[in-house]
């Protein structure tokens, strides 16, 4: 086991998977010479050469569309979008092609590509370096979406994504890229998509979260007298419905936390799931603590937007 930060674990996964499979290649803006603006791709160019770690033109739709063509030529491309919001120009490719091309070929051609990007706020960055775009991705059929919250999961989920036969988007919570270290298995390490992690066991309230909000939930749980169970869902699609429903059956109370805007955010999907499948387990309303329906704010006032420990604590207190 090595003690790595989350972004170091991403780098470890890329090194491991490129070494394991000659068809895997990394492409994106500044991923080669610079090793990525967050250093997630550091060392790949030197180790695997310019054909397998490629600095591309600054054009996200061309980058993702190019990766579709690379799949057709037999590659397993791992595309880095430099920041969450920088991926928006590529949504046309994602929606019109990446999520549909296999279906369009009657299931006869595979598109095993991975899109990974740092996402989320709280890092005192300029506009459009702070977004949480997971709902756009998870709403797109044909796409799978994973979001790690720990270094070990960052490595294992990315490895799963790269090996998966379908297109997978991995959103990496940049707020916790370097805030803590965690034990990460050396060598090959795979965390299956579709399995939630019980980050903390508890009996009174279930906190459902992913990415950087898992740590916020842990701090809230520490501050509370009631016993909180924290479900880190890790994978938005496929979704581990059983783990969520089992926890709700145990506690009867739920608070869902995400930093994306509230309306039609993934929390609404989770709340609907619980309403449909666990209504008789509930002892109170399903609550959400989320970002607001506004553009992500200027960074001097971003703390007023981000779900805070206090807001999570208040939500739990209103249920108990």
């Amino acid at each position, binding site marked *: 086991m090595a003690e790595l930060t989350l972004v170091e674990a991403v780098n470890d996964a890329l090194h491991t998977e490129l070494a394991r499979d000659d068809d895997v290649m990394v492409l994106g803006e500044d991923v080669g010479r610079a090793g990525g603006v967050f250093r997630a791709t550091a060392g790949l160019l030197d180790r695997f050469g310019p054909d397998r770690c490629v600095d591309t033109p600054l054009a996200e739709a061309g*980058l993702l569309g190019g990766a579709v063509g690379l799949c*057709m030529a037999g590659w397993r491309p791992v595309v880095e979008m430099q920041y969450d919001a920088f991926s928006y120009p590529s949504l046309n490719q994602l929606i019109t092609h990446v999520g549909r091309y296999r279906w369009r070929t009657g299931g006869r051609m595979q598109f095993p590509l991975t899109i990974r990007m740092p996402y989320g706020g709280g890092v005192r960055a300029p506009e459009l370096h702070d977004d949480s775009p997971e709902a756009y991705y998870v709403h797109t059929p044909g796409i799978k979406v994973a979001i790690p919250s720990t270094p070990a999961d960052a490595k294992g989920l990315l490895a799963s994504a790269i090996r998966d036969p379908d297109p997978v988007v991995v959103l990496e919570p940049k707020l916790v890229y370097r805030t803590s270290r965690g034990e990460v298995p050396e060598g090959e390490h795979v965390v299956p998509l579709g399995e939630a992690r019980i980050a903390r066991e508890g009996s009174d309230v279930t906190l459902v979260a992913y990415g950087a909000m898992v740590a916020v939930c842990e701090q809230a749980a520490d501050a509370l007298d009631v016993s909180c169970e924290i479900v880190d869902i890790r994978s938005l699609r496929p979704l581990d419905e059983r783990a969520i429903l089992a926890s709700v059956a145990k506690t009867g109370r739920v608070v869902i936390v995400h930093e994306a805007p509230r309306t039609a955010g993934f929390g609404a999907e989770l709340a609907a799931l619980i309403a449909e499948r666990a209504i008789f387990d509930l002892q109170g309303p399903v609550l959400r603590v989320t970002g607001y329906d506004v553009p992500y704010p200027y960074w001097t006032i971003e703390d007023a937007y981000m779900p805070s420990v206090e807001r999570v604590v208040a939500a739990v207190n209103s249920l108990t």
Partner: protein
Amino acid sequence: MATDTRSDVRFGGLAGADLLELHRRMVLLRTYDERSVIYHRQGRIGTYAIFWNHEAIQAGATFALGADDWIFPSYRESAIGLVRGLPAQTILQWWRGHPSGWWNPADWNVASISVPIASHVPHAAGLAWGKKLRGENGVAMAFFGDGATSEGEFHEGVNLAAVMNAPAVFICNNNHWAISTPLEAQTRAETLADKAVGYGIPGVTVDGLDVLAVYGAAREAVERARAGGGPTLIECVHYRAAPHATADDPSAYIDLARVEEERANECLGRFERLLLDAGVLTEERAEAARKDAEDLMRAGIAAAEAEPPADPELVFTNAYVDPPENFRNG
């Protein structure tokens, strides 16, 4: 019949048998298109994007390709796979909205028909680049219209191919109209081929109704791509002489006199006259090519209509290799 045609005549570097094959392919595409408009009116296929008088571009450009090379069609080139032997039945089913209308691109080296404009241009760039990285042969040829050159993904795709020195050929079908939007509302560039300058690649303009001119430009581009010289942009100029699609009435916006001029100069008749005058083609042979194509279409539509309706289970098939458990919840 073959004995009465001349095989020693050469046009555009092509000898008798090649010229006849090129003619056959144009006839095939023309027949596909004309029959499809009728099938649409008979309610046998859905809305259909007409490519009448685009046959010189489609047959001419692809005639420069080898079997390892890939074709990336837009919907205007929906039937271009016919030149590779892709069954008419399959393409007709595509227009009939039947799942059997989808094929495996790797079986024909023909990518799926791209409906969104220009977004397949980066795919061609990626495939060409990816083949080159693997040390494999293969040129990618993408087709798109004049309107597509206004799209960001045209730019991003051609630029990517240029930067990666990918063996790609970009064929712009400049028929002067994007549905009702004329070329001058699309660009201020004097020619669309001029856009190549910005990518540092060769750009050429050819008469889109002259199949030999299209072939010649494509052959040069394919040879350059194969030799490591990178991509080329070829603009094939003509004037759309048919509606955009079966649902379109161009009389509201198009220059009808110009359309008449264009129809009088249509590409298949022009090529046929050249071949007939030179003794390469005979009337009998031309008639036989038409009859073969008509037979192929009759058999194709009959086979398509004889297929059982699609199994609704196919709604859930093929979106994923390994689907999420809950994806059938509705």
